[in-house]
């Protein structure tokens, strides 16, 4: 049995600016499970966009800032596989490549205490039934970075299967990328759109009311396409489903 954990919420810049409900849901969920949630207000952005677009020098101040802000905390939780993945698998390497061994080791230490939400729930808190209730037909898209960078495996699905009232339907070709890829979606907009078209076709084939994922960025992409085509199918973040109660 885990006692009360003090969780530092790494809300991510995208959620902060565009999807505050995902941050609120994460907060409510963790609190409902009996844990303390703090929001280090100095946090900004992990710098993944800079790193993945090649601007490592511009990413360094962000990596340094992130490490400073989150260093005091033992458990850092993000409602994002991609941002948690960047902290865990890029921060230290980028600092080392820039010849900053001190920052590399500090970033590595923060990385070792950083979790994506489903990892934190299942591995650290040891729960796969969070007592949620969500009476809707939902299909789940495992985002690439949660799947192949963090290797969260079936943790999100285990959490979803235990949600009361949910009608969870399998997404065909679920492990195929939705075509977002950060600045890829703009730099290679046509290829990105071709990938999105196939993802949307698969989502619509499930006749789900909502497509769920653990990353607001991929959901912004899939949701932007579904909205443009007036499909009526919504997107919903994993945290929002898990925070819902009867």
């Amino acid at each position, binding site marked *: 049995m885990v006692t009360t954990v003090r969780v530092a919420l790494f809300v991510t810049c995208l959620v902060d600016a565009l999807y505050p409900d995902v941050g609120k849901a994460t907060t409510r969920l963790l609190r409902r499970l009996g844990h303390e949630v703090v929001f280090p207000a100095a946090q900004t952005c992990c710098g993944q966009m*800079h790193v993945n677009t090649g601007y490592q020098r511009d990413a360094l101040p962000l990596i340094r800032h992130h490490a400073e802000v989150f260093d005091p905390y033992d458990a850092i939780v993000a409602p994002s596989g991609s941002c948690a993945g960047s902290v865990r698998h890029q921060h230290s390497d980028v600092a080392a490549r820039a010849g900053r061994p001190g920052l590399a080791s500090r970033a590595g230490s923060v990385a070792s205490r950083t979790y994506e939400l489903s990892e934190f729930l299942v591995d650290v808190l040891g729960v796969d039934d969070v007592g949620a209730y969500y009476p809707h037909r939902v299909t789940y898209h495992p985002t690439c970075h949660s799947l192949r960078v963090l290797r969260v495996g079936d943790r999100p699905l285990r959490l979803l299967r235990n949600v009361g009232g949910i009608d969870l339907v399998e997404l065909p070709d679920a492990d195929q990328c939705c075509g977002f890829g950060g600045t890829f979606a703009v730099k290679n907009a046509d290829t990105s759109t071709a990938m999105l078209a196939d993802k949307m076709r698969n989502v619509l084939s499930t006749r789900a009311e909502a497509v769920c994922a653990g990353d607001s960025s991929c959901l912004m992409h899939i949701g932007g396409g579904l909205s443009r085509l007036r499909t009526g199918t919504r997107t919903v973040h994993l945290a929002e489903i898990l925070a819902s109660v009867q």
Partner: protein
Amino acid sequence: MKTYLGMPTAPAGVGALSGSLPFPDAARPALADAQLRRNLGHATRTIRAKRAAVVGEVSDWEELRLAGQAIKKATMARLDEHLERLEREVTARGGRVHWATDAVAANRIVTEIVQATGATEVVKVKSMATQEIGLNEALESAGITAVETDLAELIVQLGHDRPSHILVPAIHRNRSEILEIFQREMGDAPADLTDEPRRLAMAARSHLRRRFLAARVAVSGANFAVAETGTLAVVESEGNGRMCLTLPQTLISVMGLEKIVPTWEDLGVFLQLLPRSSTGERMNPYTSMWTGVTPGDGPQEFHLVLLDNGRTAALADEVGREALHCIRCSACLNVCPVYERAGGHAYGSVYPGPIGAVISPQLTGVAANASLPYASTLCGACFDACPVRIDIPALLVHLRARVVEERRLPTPESIAMAAASWLMSSPKRFGGAIRAARGVRLVGRRRGRISALPPPLSGWTASRDAPVPPPETFREWWRRTGGGRDE
């Protein structure tokens, strides 16, 4: 002279390694071609399933991958010693070794060898190295006809086309297109030929049989060279390679110098990894190995051309050099969602797909292939499929950094990135910026979505709505409600 891992560094590679258009533009024709999208989608899906099945039945697949990775890394660390050993062993067994710094040198060496035999036609085993250096075109300009004998490569050659896949160069063609190419270009195609796969193969077989029997010179690549005995190996499926490697009097093999393995024990690891990753077979039908010259049996003259063409320059990149571990299986192409939609030609280089996006810029220098490292969503499927565990997503990120670092002048993007870094490195500035973004609400508040944004974000809104910023950011909510406690 500066050396890396014991190897002197030759200039960047030249040859068929970069296209004239950047990737996003070069991808457009394929994306708009419904037939091509179907051909590629069907072919990659089929081969993905075959690979997954045969990889799944090997209980120690992950250990094999680790072994392959370790052997490659250790081999690269002493590449100079292994190459000199290979040269000694090949020479001692009656072969001749030629060192080619780049494509131009390699083409000259091969052309001179063919000219010395007096032959005007050579038969060829499918080879990425000779595609890379543009050997067929170089021979043609010297009045020598090169005949591709691999079926798919023959289709590409007869169609005056370019290969679009490492293993299946005509993957972008379907059988009715192949029938049309054969009828138009083959000369001796049967009048009643149909698009039945077996009949197409038989037509190619009888067309090629005459060339095999008449050939005096063959040109091949090599999948591996075993340094300890000077043995070369070619793996293939059709038997055309075996014909080329055994029938002619003279054999010329062009091999990238990274294809070397130190011992036969090492070779055993790769012969397990390659066919399952490549064609999705437990073992490929033909594995040909030859060691120098055997009097009275097989080619009596053997030349090995060791090709640099940017490889030692790639070795100089401590991170990027991992791309040289590639064994050209093409598993990463078949799992890549970008390759599946954009096709091989979009990459401009003879090396397409995820591995092409890291190898091509390594060989040419990143400036000549600056758009390729960005031709990926970094989804990571390529790393999982790679039999020698090349961390392609990490290499792509590294090469993107090299593209940015080697650019001399600022671009709108670099200015925006620097501005974003400045804004986001201070919580005060960041909070202000995301509050200010709320101005966009004026555009989309009424309909709950934003359907048009100015460039460069117009690339997004061409096919996707953008979210309307919320009335309150998360940090504002937290401050207002004490993290929800006061709500």
